[in-house]
């Protein structure tokens, strides 16, 4: 489909959708919107033929946001924030965007706050700041944000990890949120929280919540800048840590089904008694056994891969699985985590960003919870040795049916710019194109100038912001404004998008897996909370179909154990799928506006 055909008004789209989709597929066209104008002549260097140019469309979206940052980053806590979450908080089918913000130490000690921001998607390529109305501007010293529907009412809730605890914002269904942290039983968490992920580990249909904690850190007893060996980098005085910092334990909160959570970390065996420096956490069914595992990336230490026994207990299998350390037994920085079936094996592999002089590590999932580090043979390692990587994600940026990989970078020490050591504070974004043979091609220098602009990147989220079949990349930078990348020219191939809703499974269908077959293309993906670094991507599943105009078969593996198969889904459409009912009008899975918790208690919980 040409770009012109997708830039149509809502009314035409509905008519067109009805005509095209027919009776068998009660599909939702999703009101395809007008993408924002692409900046003309932005790239002086011409992108290479065959490599779609990524352009920076931030200015045209109207998003104005500044992540605060002290200039010198004298303390590690000032270098770590910057999460971005795509959350369709009003359930209109258009992803909205939430950016976290954090003060510096001086501000915090003076009682000053940093304003996080929620931007409403205006469905016309622009966004409006609705933070104040939504009431989500000042949760805390905010690090990351993830999305889950803890009360299964169909309204996605927002969970913020903080330096000093967590904040759970319940979505009231009327454009506002309420801080229900205390009421939900999460108020006792006072540690430095970084990663978090919703996931129904016990299969009761209720999303549980895991929080990974970083260091034990006291703002009134801070390690002095540059004062010790752990506060030097290549002989330069820098902030202290993470080496030398004492870590904090992690927490698993089981959803009680009544709006509260219960801390089951210890009994579940995921409390991190080693007190490692926890960063990104993500739930996934790595071995396709219907029970979700938990992967936790720990800074400068082993990762955890917790295998779920289905009875409420986990075992760390990271060493036998081969994901604890790098293949030489080294503990790397382990910051951002991307999951994706880039090889079409049916299993999600893991890509982890690391510090400079390390490399972006790609663990190929060989099935049965065994992984192989293929960073070298995939040709990713060599390109990523000189950057400090943060948010990363697999996504099909050219809709060819094969997942590509993007990572944002940026150092933690501004001081490196004053020393001649070969690394810079601001670093370019990197894009790797899937070569469909287990290797990737670094096209960062061929995909236009926007990617090459050096930034201090942190969070990264992926989603089709404009519902036109092409996925945008939203990046939150530690310093200054965020950036939104968009493949120029829109989608070059066919695609399909699925918005899932559980009935027996949790309402947002977290960790529901989908296998989609289009001709010889067989892809799998999974709905996931969290991932990347401190971030949340669009919960809808997007598949590029290359030149196939339809998905022949869509198999859905709900977390409840139910399997559904859909057939003959036309390409270039958004579909809403309800567990047990197949494709339905989207209104059937989205709550009615205004039917928030006070009016609609949501689906009966167990």
């Amino acid at each position, binding site marked *: 489909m040409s770009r012109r055909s997708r830039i149509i008004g809502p009314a035409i789209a509905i008519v067109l959708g009805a005509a095209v989709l027919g009776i068998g597929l009660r599909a939702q066209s999703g009101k395809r919107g007008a993408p924002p104008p692409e900046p003309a002549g932005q790239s002086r260097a011409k992108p290479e033929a065959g490599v779609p140019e990524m352009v920076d469309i931030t200015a045209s979206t109207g998003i104005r946001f500044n992540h605060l940052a002290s200039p010198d980053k004298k303390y590690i806590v000032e270098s770590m924030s910057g999460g971005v979450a795509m959350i369709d908080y009003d359930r209109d089918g258009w992803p909205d965007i939430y950016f976290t913000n954090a003060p510096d130490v001086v501000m915090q000690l003076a009682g000053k706050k940093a304003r996080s921001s929620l931007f409403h998607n205006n469905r016309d390529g622009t966004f409006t700041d609705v933070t104040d109305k939504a009431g989500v501007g000042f949760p805390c010293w905010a690090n990351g944000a993830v999305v889950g529907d803890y009360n299964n009412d169909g309204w996605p809730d927002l969970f913020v990890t903080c330096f000093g605890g967590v904040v759970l914002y319940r979505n009231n269904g009327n454009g506002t949120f309420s801080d229900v942290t205390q009421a939900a039983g999460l108020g006792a968490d006072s540690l430095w929280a970084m990663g978090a992920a919703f996931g129904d580990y016990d299969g009761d249909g209720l999303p549980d919540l895991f929080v990974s904690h970083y260091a034990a850190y006291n703002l009134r007893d801070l390690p002095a800048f*540059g*004062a*010790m*060996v*752990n506060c*030097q980098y*290549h*002989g330069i*005085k820098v902030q202290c840590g993470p080496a030398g910092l004492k870590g904090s334990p992690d927490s698993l909160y089981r959803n009680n089904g009544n709006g509260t959570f219960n801390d089951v970390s210890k009994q579940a065996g995921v409390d991190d008694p080693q007190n490692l420096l926890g960063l990104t956490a993500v739930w996934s069914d790595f071995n396709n056994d219907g029970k979700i595992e938990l992967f936790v990336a720990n800074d400068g230490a082993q990762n955890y891969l917790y295998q779920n026994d289905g009875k409420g207990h986990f075992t760390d299998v990271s*060493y*036998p699985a*081969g994901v604890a*350390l790098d*293949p*030489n*037994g080294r503990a790397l920085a382990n910051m951002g985590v991307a999951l994706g079936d880039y090889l079409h094996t049916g299993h999600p592999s893991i890509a982890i960003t690391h510090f*400079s*002089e390390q490399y972006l590590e790609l663990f190929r999932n060989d099935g049965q919870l*065994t992984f192989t580090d293929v960073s*070298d*043979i995939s*040709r990713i390692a*060599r390109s990523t*040795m*000189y950057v400090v990587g943060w948010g990363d994600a697999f996504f099909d940026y050219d809709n060819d049916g094969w997942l590509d990989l993007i990572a944002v970078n940026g150092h933690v020490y501004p001081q490196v710019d004053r020393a*001649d*050591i*070969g*690394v810079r504070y601001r670093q370019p974004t990197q894009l790797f194109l899937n070569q469909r043979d287990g290797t990737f091609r670094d096209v960062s220098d061929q995909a236009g100038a926007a990617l090459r602009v050096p930034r201090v990147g942190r969070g990264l989220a992926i989603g089709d912001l404009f519902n036109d079949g092409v996925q945008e990349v939203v990046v939150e930078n530690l310093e200054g404004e965020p950036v939104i990348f968009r493949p120029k020219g829109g989608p070059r191939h066919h695609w399909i998008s699925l918005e899932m809703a559980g009935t027996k499974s949790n309402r947002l269908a977290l960790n529901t897996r989908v296998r989609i077959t289009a001709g010889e293309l067989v892809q799998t993906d999974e709905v996931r909370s969290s991932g990347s670094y401190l971030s949340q991507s669009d919960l809808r599943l997007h598949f590029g179909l290359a030149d196939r105009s339809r998905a022949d078969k869509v198999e859905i593996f709900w977390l409840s154990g139910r399997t559904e198969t859909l057939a003959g889904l036309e390409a270039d459409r958004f579909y809403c799928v309800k567990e047990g009912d197949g494709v339905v009008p989207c209104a059937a899975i989205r709550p009615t506006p205004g039917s928030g918790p006070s009016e609609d208690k949501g689906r009966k919980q167990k």
Partner: protein
Amino acid sequence: MHVRNLVSRTCCALVVWLPWPVLMAQSTPDVPNKVAALEQQVQKHLQEQKPQLAIPVLREIISLDPKNLNAQANLGVLVFFQGNYAEAIPHMQAALQVQPGVWRIEALLGIAEKRTGNPGEALNHLERAFSNLDEKKIRIEAGLELVELYSASGQLDKALSVAARMGELSPQDPQILFATHQLSRQMMYQSLLAMMMAAPDSAEMHMLMAGELGRQGDRANSIAQYREALRLNPKLPGAHFELAEQLRTASDAAMNAQAEVEFKAAIQVNEYDELSWRQLGGVLSLKGDLKGAETHYRKALALQPKDAEAKTGLAIVLISLNRTNEAISLLESAVKDDPTNTVAHFRLSGLYRRTGRTADAQREMDAFRHYQDVKDKLEKVFKQLAGQGRPM
């Protein structure tokens, strides 16, 4: 080198078990009755751990019988451990005059002389004592004093020789390890000073400076000094290799790329430079030139068949080439050659697991964890050492 200020606990313990009966046996047989009675008093005081009461009695014995070996020796020892080295010396000398070859007394005499500012005599006595003593603890005490004397007089080769002999006696003794470390540093600075005086503009001088700068973390200047050394002498042994290492371990892509050139230059200068062959193998492996890497690793192993790192590097290449069995053999050999090679243990564990050898995999993982733990502790100590030595 700092002078040790206190006699160690080992030496202090000497007075307790310094064999009084042995010394008695060395006394003259025609002792007057009064002396015999006094000696009994001395024994009683010593048994009761009251040396301060024994000392005046011993003095009385000596006033009655100046050639009483037993009294002279024991009085010398007791006042030595009271820190009264000046008084101890004549008594121990008198004892040794009566009966030479009491090496423990001679060792203490040497130490006392050293501490009373007579290094020449001290050296003579300690050399003799150290060469003849059988008892390990007192021999090490004498040896440590001897090392300090040699070191202070600039006789570092002799000091190192003594340190080496002590190391054979007690390889884990921190005092000996520390002394050896200090001597090595002293040797290094001495040679640096000599080089500065003798050939300040030589290629060797620049290479020395480069090494020092590299150790201090000043990579840019270290590289500049290596380059200057090579400008002066393009065939300076080891210079290309050291420069390559600085380049290889930099955080700069351009520098890393230059490392390969320098390793190749090192091999051109000396085709038997096994380390350069090995490191070049690593560089090529990183570039994805697996065939080239294999060739270079094999060349290194031909030159040094027991190089565990080369075996491990080659095994990693073979793993990438899916030649698992060959890789396993190499890694098994590597951990035999160097049981502390954590990379080899970890890789081997992974390969065993993949080939279904679960118990072997666990054994290697245990070995990995053990040695990794040791390395982590060492690294922590080194970081602390570096921190203490570095101006903030």
